[in-house]
């Protein structure tokens, strides 16, 4: 397997841009990534575009705007994990030797299709027809988790407080105003126990990364290249029916376990993490599944500020999905860009000092009979 490096990343801001089609958002991010890489666009041999709701031929429509035509362009979808699925596609294309330079693009304009409320899901799923949205699914996860591990509503709210505090330092974040436990708990109840501020917002953005093989990195790199130490995609399982629906942790544990093994590293080696905190409860469950703490100890991580800026394993310095935003197909590459910036020392006021290794976890999951549609975990290092 060849070594794979990230040469450049680029993003738009996160927010509501109903006037900007996916191809408009996407071309900005793709062009920014190419400029950041400092390579000639024609060096790109293959492109992958992750999105969920943006229709047909989005990658082609977008890349045409910057002259990137001819090469294979593949649109990929893996629910909320679509962006990192595009990254995984780019990585494996290079790692297994088919091409040497690839572009991974993620894009979503949600505000064009949705003014607010839960993401539209597939009515062919019985549970969706029965009234399940992503907030209610996570609400049930939270309810059980709180009961089993004695976690309080205040502890859940602290996830959001931390998230907003980080986002205040991130110029591209959608929510940059700090908040309080009381503020989070007073926001309207969406599905008990999750209040609105504990749910990620509707928003739009695009992000992209340029990857290349180890053989070309010395020749092409204009900035400090970031090495992909591990990259794994796995779908949810249907292993134990008694665990169905409620717990995404099997998928995250399995996927991250494979990524750690590929990298030859463990959770203790991670300096910074961008994880899929679509809802407050998700951050606790995922931190456990990634091995940052024991099962049930996710709330203590927050209480002890170990995952806050300045802590030993900083989680979501960007503000995460809760505050930077969750433009579905763009999310995975927004996370990736954030980790790249930290490893390069370019993360500004939210820089995790001396970060050498970072992990990215994205969870696409609206398939109630499994623990998730797609989980992708990448580990990056300098």
């Amino acid at each position, binding site marked *: 397997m060849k070594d794979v490096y990230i040469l450049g990343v680029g993003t738009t801001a996160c927010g509501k841009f109903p006037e900007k089609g996916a191809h408009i958002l996407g071309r900005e991010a793709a062009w920014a990534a190419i400029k950041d890489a400092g390579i000639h666009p024609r060096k790109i041999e293959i492109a992958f575009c992750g999105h969920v709701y943006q229709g047909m031929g989005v990658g082609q429509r977008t890349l045409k705007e910057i002259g990137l035509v001819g090469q294979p362009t593949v649109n990929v979808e893996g629910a909320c994990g679509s962006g990192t699925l595009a990254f995984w596609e780019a990585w494996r294309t290079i790692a297994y030797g088919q091409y040497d330079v690839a572009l991974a693009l993620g894009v979503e304009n949600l505000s064009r299709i949705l003014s607010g409320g839960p993401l539209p899901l597939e009515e062919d799923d019985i549970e969706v027809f029965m009234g*399940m949205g992503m907030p*209610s699914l996570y609400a049930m996860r939270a309810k059980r988790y709180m009961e089993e591990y004695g976690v309080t509503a205040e502890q859940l709210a602290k996830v959001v407080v931390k998230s907003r505090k980080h986002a205040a330092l991130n110029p591209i974040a959608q929510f940059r105003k700090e908040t309080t436990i009381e503020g989070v708990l007073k926001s309207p109840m969406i*599905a008990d126990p999750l209040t609105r501020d504990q749910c990620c917002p509707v928003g739009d953005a695009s992000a992209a990364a340029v990857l290349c093989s180890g053989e070309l990195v010395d020749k092409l790199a204009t900035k400090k290249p970031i090495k992909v130490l591990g990259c794994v995609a796995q779908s949810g399982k249907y292993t134990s029916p008694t665990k169905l629906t409620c717990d995404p942790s099997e998928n995250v544990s399995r996927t991250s376990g494979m990524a750690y093994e590929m990298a030859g590293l463990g959770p203790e080696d991670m300096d910074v993490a961008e994880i899929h905190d679509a809802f407050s409860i998700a951050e606790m469950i995922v931190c456990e599944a990634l091995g940052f703490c024991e099962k049930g100890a996710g709330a203590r991580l927050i209480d002890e500020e170990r995952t806050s800026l300045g802590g030993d394993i900083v989680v979501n310095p960007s503000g995460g999905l809760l505050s930077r935003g969750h433009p579905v197909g763009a999310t995975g590459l927004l996370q990736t860009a954030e980790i790249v910036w930290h490893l390069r020392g370019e993360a500004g006021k939210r820089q995790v000092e001396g970060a050498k290794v970072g992990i990215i976890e994205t969870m696409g999951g609206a398939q109630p009979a499994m623990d998730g549609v797609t989980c992708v975990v990448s580990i990056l290092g300098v």
Partner: protein
Amino acid sequence: MSEKEKASDQTEIYKPELFSTTPHPHLIAGRCKSCRKYTFPKYYACPFCFSDDLEDSPLSPTGILHSFTIVRRSFPAYPVPYGLGLVDFPEGVRVMAQIETDKPEELKLDMKMGITVGPIRKGKDGKDILSYKFRPLS
């Protein structure tokens, strides 16, 4: 909205093949004739042994509430608030459905739940669509 059927009284029933009210309300799962394990609903092939010889099989009329929520904001066709729960049945399957109750404050994890039939959402014509729901016992 595939596979739904209209009952003779024009009330739309969602997934009538997944429940029955006689002799008492219960759900109908799939069961593998080879490894004898259950799934809900019945799949095309058994996820445990990959046999495609499956049969309909009733689940026990009661189960245990694994978790629940009261949904206060939802898709347009769903009048809020409503209860949504996950119930574990002795056959080893966990099912999600709405909860019919006047007293949501009395819902508790691990309580015993039964099956009933009631409105789950509005159809395109604005009329209620009915299907199976959970109801608290005790």
